[in-house]
C-alpha cells in the first residue's frame, strides 16, 4: 500500500494548490493522516475515489478541540531602580513571568477511507473549521461518498459542523427543536431538563390537601359514594 506521504505527493501532483498537510500520529498504531484545505477538499476526494480507488468511506466523525489556555513561563530582563550601598541606581534584573495565551479552538471532521478494489486502508483525512462559533462550515463529501450522508448529519447534530453541499442536512439523533450540540466538550446539560413533578414533599402535600378537599365536598353533599 502507498504510504500517506506518497498519497500526499500524488494529490499535490494532481490537484494544484491542494494544500495537503501531513499529520504524524505518535501512537503505535502508525495511522498517520492528511489534513485537507476545505476549499479543495471535494476535488481531492474525487481524485482519491476515482484515481486512487479509495471507494469505501468507512467512518466519518467529528472531534471538538476547544480554546485552550496555555501558560508559558517567560524570562524577562528589565531595568529597575534599586538602592545598592545606600545609592539609588538602575540595576538589570531577570525575572520569570507567567503569561497566558489562548490558542483558538476548532471543530474537526475525520474521514477513514478504505479501498475495496485494492484491499487497502485506512487512509485518514481531516478537515478543520476556522473556529467553533461562527465559521463552522466544511464542504460535504456526501456527493462523493454516499456513506457520509448519515454520519455528516450526526456530526452536524452532535458537534455543530455545517456541511455545505449536503443534500439533506438535518439533525439525526436529537429532535428537531433541540438547540445545543451535546458532543462538544463544553456542553452543559440544562438542570431543569424535562422536569416532571412527582408526588414528593410539597407536591405530596398539595396532593393530599386536594384529596381531602374532594372527600370533604363529597360528604357535605351527602352522596357518600366514591370514597
Amino acid at each position: 500500500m502507498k504510504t500517506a506521504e506518497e498519497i500526499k505527493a500524488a494529490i499535490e501532483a494532481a490537484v494544484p494548490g491542494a494544500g495537503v498537510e501531513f499529520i504524524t500520529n505518535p501512537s503505535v498504531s502508525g495511522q498517520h493522516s492528511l489534513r485537507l484545505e476545505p476549499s479543495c477538499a471535494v476535488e481531492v476526494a474525487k481524485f482519491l475515489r476515482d484515481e486512487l480507488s479509495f471507494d469505501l468511506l468507512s467512518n466519518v466523525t467529528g472531534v471538538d478541540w476547544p480554546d485552550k489556555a496555555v501558560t508559558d513561563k517567560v524570562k524577562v530582563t528589565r531595568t529597575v531602580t534599586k538602592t545598592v550601598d545606600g545609592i539609588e541606581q538602575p540595576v538589570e534584573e531577570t525575572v520569570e513571568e507567567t503569561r497566558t495565551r489562548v490558542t483558538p479552538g476548532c471543530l474537526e471532521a475525520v474521514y477513514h477511507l478504505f479501498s475495496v478494489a485494492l484491499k487497502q486502508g485506512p487512509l485518514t483525512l481531516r478537515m478543520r473549521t476556522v473556529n467553533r462559533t461562527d465559521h463552522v462550515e466544511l464542504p460535504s463529501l456526501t456527493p462523493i461518498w454516499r456513506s457520509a450522508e448519515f454520519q455528516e448529519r450526526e456530526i452536524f447534530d452532535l458537534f455543530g459542523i455545517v456541511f455545505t453541499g449536503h443534500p439533506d442536512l438535518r439533525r439525526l439523533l436529537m429532535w428537531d427543536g433541540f438547540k445545543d450540540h451535546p458532543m462538544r466538550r463544553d456542553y452543559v446539560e440544562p438542570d431543569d431538563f424535562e422536569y416532571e413533578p412527582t408526588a414528593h414533599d410539597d407536591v405530596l402535600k398539595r396532593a393530599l390537601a386536594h384529596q381531602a378537599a374532594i372527600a370533604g365536598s363529597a360528604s357535605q353533599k351527602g352522596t357518600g359514594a366514591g370514597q
Partner: protein
Amino acid sequence: MNGTDKLGVFDGSGSKPDGWNRPPVIEPDGDAELLEVAMGPHHPSTHGVFRMDVALDGERVIRLKPVFGYLHRNHEKIAEGLGYLGSMPFTDRLDYMCPLTNNWAYALAVEKLTGQEVPERAEYLRVILGELTRVQNHASAIGFLIQEMGASGTPLMYAFREREKILDLFEALTGARMMVNYMRFGGCRVDATPAWLDAARKVVAGLPGFADEMDRLLSGNEILMARTQGVGILKPELAVNAGVTGPMLRASGVNYDIRKVDSYGIYNRFNFRVPLGDHGDVYDRYMIRLLEMRESIKILEQALKDIPAGPVMDPKAKIRGFRPKPGEAYGRIEAPKGELGFYLISDGGPNPYRYRIRPPSLINLTVLEDMALGENVADVVLIFGSVDIVLGEVDR
C-alpha cells in the same frame, strides 16, 4: 420481476456523473393523492423503536425517510467520562444480539492504540466466541426475516432453539447470556475449562444439522422465493459507495470480508470461503447468511480442534487505569452485521479524548430508501428486515 438479471462484477473503475449515488425521484401516476404513513416507532417489524416516514401512491413507495434517535443515549459522551475499561460493559449494549463481537472490536482498537499483544489461546477463544456469535446472529436474522414475511413462529423458534444452546455456552463461560463483558485489552477475562470446550464441541457438532434443516425448510419454499426474489435490489457500485458492509455487501457480489482483508487476530490460519451473491436482492441476503453460517461452523471446528494451552491474559498487562501515549487508532472487525469500528483519540489521560463507534447497522440503512423505492409497501418490511439491524447500535 427482474430477479434473473445478474449484477455486474464490482471493479471500482470509472468515474460517475454527479448525483448518481442519490435515490431516484419517482413521480406518482397522474394526479394521484399521496398517502403519508409513519411506519413506527412501534411497528412490529422495526425491531425496537425506529420510524420510516413513507409516502405511498396506492401501494407503491414514492418516498421513504428513516427517522432515528428514539434509543439515543450518547454512549460516546458517556465514554469520554470513563476510563478505557469502563466502556467495555457499555459495548455489550450496542448490538445486544452480538455482545462478544462488540467487545472484540473495542479491545482491538485499544490494543492498536497501546500496542498490547494478545496470547494465542485468547485469540482462539475470541475466534470461537466471535463465530458462535455470528451463527446465532444470522440464525435469528433469518428467523426474524421469515417472521416478518408472515411465517409466524416456526422458523424463528427453530433459530431461537439453536440460539439458546449458544447463549447457554456464553453464560457458562462469561456469567451472562447477553451482557457478557468478557474481553479485555490483551486477552480475555477468564479461561475456558476443558468441560466448556467439550460442551462447545458438542453444540458445534449439532450446527451443520441445523443449517441443513433451515435450508430444507426455507430455501426452496415457493412463497419465500416469490416474496424475496427480485425485491430490494442493491447494485454493487452503490453498495460500496454508501459504505454498506457485511453480508449485505457480499449479497451484492462484492468480495470484501474484513476477516480476509485485514486478517485481524488469527483469521489467516483458518480455511474458509467468502460466499457471494449474484442478484443483490432479499433472497440473496437470506442465502448469504445461511452460507456464512456454514463457513462459521467450519472455522469453529478448526478452532476447537487447534486451541492451544496457555494463558488467556498477559499477567503483566495493565487493564485498569492505564494512560496510552497521545495519538489515535482506528480498529475494525467483521461483526455479523458488517464493519464494526472503534476510533479512539488519546490525549495521554486515563480517559479517551474521543471515542467513536462506527455502527454498521446505521450505515447499512443509508441505502434503505434506494432499495425500497418503487416497491410495494408490504415489501418495505422485508427489505428492512433483510438489512438486519439492532437499534441499540443504530442510535447509540
